[in-house]
């Protein structure tokens, strides 16, 4: 009956809320309790090194181009062997929206997101991180990947000498 349904519908919520009153709240009380985010969480951005301990970044500017809020800037440089690196690398965390597009753009897996989400600072200028702040000593997510073992100029192996790589194409030859 309709009236019975209405009366039931009036008193049922009271029973439910009374039940919830004695349940443990789901709140995580932040400064004391901290949630451990999953490993692929997108928070603080770092620059990683390859397994040999060298910088992975080749200053290709792809991350800077992919960044929707333009918070990454860098200056490219070359060492005496022609290997490119970033002379300076600047990431403004006060602009960063943690979208992770830079990590998707990066060909060398240098720029990566980490689960460390506590970046807040009272001084906004301290949120502009330079290369020294960003560079870490580990490899990040892919511990075996080294860009120069798959591509690029001869830093690890001779040019074109990697296993999954052709030699350089001779532009003067007509052969495919």
């Amino acid at each position, binding site marked *: 009956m309709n009236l019975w349904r209405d009366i039931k519908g009036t008193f049922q919520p*009271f029973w439910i*809320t009374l039940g919830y009153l004695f349940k443990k*709240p789901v709140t995580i009380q932040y400064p004391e309790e901290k949630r451990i985010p999953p490993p692929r969480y997108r928070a603080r951005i770092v620059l990683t090194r390859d397994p040999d301990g060298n910088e992975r970044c080749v200053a290709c500017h792809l991350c800077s181009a992919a960044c929707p809020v333009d918070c990454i800037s860098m200056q490219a440089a070359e060492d005496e062997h022609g290997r490119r690196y970033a002379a300076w690398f600047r990431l403004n965390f006060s602009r960063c929206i943690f979208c992770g597009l830079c990590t998707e753009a990066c060909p060398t897996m240098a720029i990566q997101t980490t689960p460390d989400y506590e970046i807040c600072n009272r001084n906004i200028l301290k949120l502009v991180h330079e290369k020294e702040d960003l560079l870490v000593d580990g490899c990040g997510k892919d511990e075996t990947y080294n860009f120069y073992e798959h591509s690029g100029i001869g830093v690890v192996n001779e040019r074109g000498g990697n296993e999954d790589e052709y030699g350089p194409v001779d532009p003067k030859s007509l052969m495919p």
Partner: protein
Amino acid sequence: MNDLLITLLLILVKLGLIFGVVLGMAAYLVLAERKILGRMQLRYGPNRVGPGGMIQPMCDVIKLITKEDFIPDRADKWVFLFAPGLTALTALLSFAVVPFAPPLHLFGREIPMVVCDLNVGVLYIFGLSSLAVYGVVLGGWASNSKYSLIGAVRSMAQLISYELALGLALVPVIMTAKSFSLTEIVMSQADWPNLLRHPLAFIIFMIAVAAESKRTPFDMPEAENEIVGGFHTEYSGMRFGLFFVGEYISLIVIGAMTTVFFLGGWHGPFLPPVVWFVMKVLFVAFLFIWARGSMPRPRYDQLMHFGWKVLLPLGLVNVVITGAVLVALNG
């Protein structure tokens, strides 16, 4: 003369006690409501300031006092300024007739535990509750804002409609007590409370009183998600605080009224009467907080239909039945 002086002094002491206790209770009811609602929604509620959030009310008061007291452009200034005080005042004044314990015998004097035992106490409370609407209405009108005006008009219509049901729910209580005095109503419930004698009247009373106090199932005058806070949209600082405190004082008044009219006042086994009274008041306050955590807000026309077409006829039928039964019992 000496006797008169002592009587006057006693009244002043009782006034001060009630004032302090009621204001303190109102402040901590806010905290209790926030915490209970939080637990009902599986969160903790305020628990940062002091142990378990116990200093939160003080912090709220400091915040409200130090905020800017903003008066909107082209508002009716004087009406805008006194309206919140009116709300808090009418709520506080209701306590003058509420008896919270049986008369005390001290040094050969009988000290009634009520500030002023009016023989028309019920009507006094009705009068004040019908005046409480003025604070809301004038505040809403003086704000010179459409949302405030809608809130004011809604609260007027709602209060007028539900006051009738409220009055009719109390008629059976007065019929059994044969008096308008609140003390005598409590006395008449010495054997068993009116809740068991008049269950229908109790249900009508609770619904009507929730509508009177604009508590959540009936909070159309301040419905946050349709008219942005209604009558107190334009208020800030301590003037908003006065509206807020008035609302919680009226919650305690409702608790006291329900206790006096239906739950048997201070009567109860084992514990001292005052403790029973406070426990009952807090229980009723908890009921209203519970309802706030559980009930959705009805539509405005549904509210009006319910008030006039369901609650009012039910109240009338209840009065007639109670009268018939009383006449039959008395021969």
